[in-house]
């Protein structure tokens, strides 16, 4: 059985799954809209979580939170389920497909067969849509891929029950109830307000303060950890910021696109201006990534180089602080 489903490629998996499920149900919601309403933009340094032997830095909110907030703010109901037994998880998936209901799944990337080998790390917060089953093969719409793909029963079970941080535990989700009309306007305002609050939070590892903290650490790493480890950490920052799914510039461009779209919906020209500013901040993040790569490209970087990128990062923090204060006032 195959459900009539249109696949649209997106930059990020979670936004993409939500956007595609909404489009399937007749609501034309773009990826940046989902991201902005769900307050996806963030900066957070997570010292107690190591990813690939380097400290974790994230440019987005917790996996799953974008969808949760988006649903709450526009007024749709979502059913979430997790399973301890793979058999139950499969039964529930098959039931939904039999009812013509495409569903979102959280999966681990490591065993995802259709991903290039180099990209298969133990990352468990990837999302995809299953829209049908033919001869024991599941039809998959993975939003970051250009076209649809498929996985066998065994392959899908493996990725649904990947282990480690954020283990998906067969997590399945789908919208169950839609209002007649979505409250887009109020949802946009709520989304923006929370993003401003998060980015300006008085917590040392979050938002603008988090960016400043990482700048400080970049200065310390070469002395404390040696250049080899320091460079590995810098490479990790670039990967978190620019890897597939971010849309470039640590999600800043997607956020700028959201502000531009919102400016038209809310008829607020100030948001369009701020969108242009966010694009420029995104460009600064790109420059920062480029300069980091110059350091880890040749192993014998001068100490001055670390200092320079730290200054660059502090400039970004200052700009984002001004930006989010202005954004808070604009709505």
């Amino acid at each position, binding site marked *: 059985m195959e459900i009539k489903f249109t696949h649209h490629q997106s930059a990020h998996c979670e936004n993409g799954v939500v956007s595609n499920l909404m489009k399937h149900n007749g609501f034309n919601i773009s990826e940046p809209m989902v991201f902005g309403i769900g307050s996806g933009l963030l900066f957070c340094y997570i010292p107690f979580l190591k990813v690939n032997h380097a400290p974790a830095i994230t440019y987005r909110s917790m996996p799953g939170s974008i969808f949760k907030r988006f649903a709450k703010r526009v007024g749709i109901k979502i059913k979430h389920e997790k399973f301890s037994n793979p058999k139950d998880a499969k039964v529930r998936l098959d039931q939904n497909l039999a009812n013509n209901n495409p569903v979102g799944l959280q999966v681990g990337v*490591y065993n995802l067969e259709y991903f290039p080998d180099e990209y298969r790390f133990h990352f468990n917060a990837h999302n995809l849509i299953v829209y049908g089953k033919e001869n024991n093969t599941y039809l998959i719409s993975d939003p970051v*891929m250009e076209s649809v793909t498929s996985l066998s029963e065994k392959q899908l079970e493996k990725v649904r029950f990947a282990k*480690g941080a954020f*283990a998906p535990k067969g997590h399945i989700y789908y919208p169950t109830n839609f209002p007649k009309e979505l409250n887009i306007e109020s949802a946009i305002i709520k989304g923006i307000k929370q993003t401003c609050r998060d980015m300006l939070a008085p917590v040392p590892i979050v938002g603008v303060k988090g960016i400043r903290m990482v700048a400080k650490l970049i200065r310390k790493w070469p002395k404390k950890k040696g250049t080899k480890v320091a460079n590995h950490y810098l490479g990790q920052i*670039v990967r978190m910021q620019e890897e597939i799914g971010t849309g*470039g510039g640590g999600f800043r461009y*997607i956020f700028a696109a959201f502000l531009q779209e919102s400016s038209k919906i809310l008829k607020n020209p100030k948001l369009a201006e701020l969108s242009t500013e966010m*694009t420029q901040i995104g460009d600064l993040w790109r420059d920062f990534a480029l300069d980091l790569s110059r350091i880890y490209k040749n192993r014998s970087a001068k100490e001055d180089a670390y200092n320079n990128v730290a200054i660059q990062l502090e400039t970004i923090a200052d700009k984002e602080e001004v930006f989010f204060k202005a954004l808070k006032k604009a709505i």
Partner: protein
Amino acid sequence: MKKNEVPQDKSNLESVNFKELCYAVDENGEYTTAHSTGWDPKTIALNKAIEEIHERTENAKQRVLNNTTSPIEYYMELHKMDLPILSSYVGFWKWRVKRHFKPKVFNKLPQKTLQKYADVFDISIDKLKNIADGN
């Protein structure tokens, strides 16, 4: 980022004929999406990370051959895992997995425990015990 500035560098994506989606502005300042084949700064970062994993794996292999660690650590590195991930897959506490890194402890492990590790790494017990086979 302007649409015509979206980088089109060579990357590991080429092998699978896959392009990623980026957000950029067009000539009128309107946001749109554009495909990118890759960007050097992140390709280099990814390649370095992979190199690092190879180094770690090679290092673990040498230590297995020198009898200072057990093959479990080698297979852990080979599968890009770390201690928390392996412990979660195999269902043992981290300190137990770490103990199983000791060759002396590893050599006395019961078949049942070995089978659990072999299942996680998707190999036979023979291969788990003898890393030189087929590698």
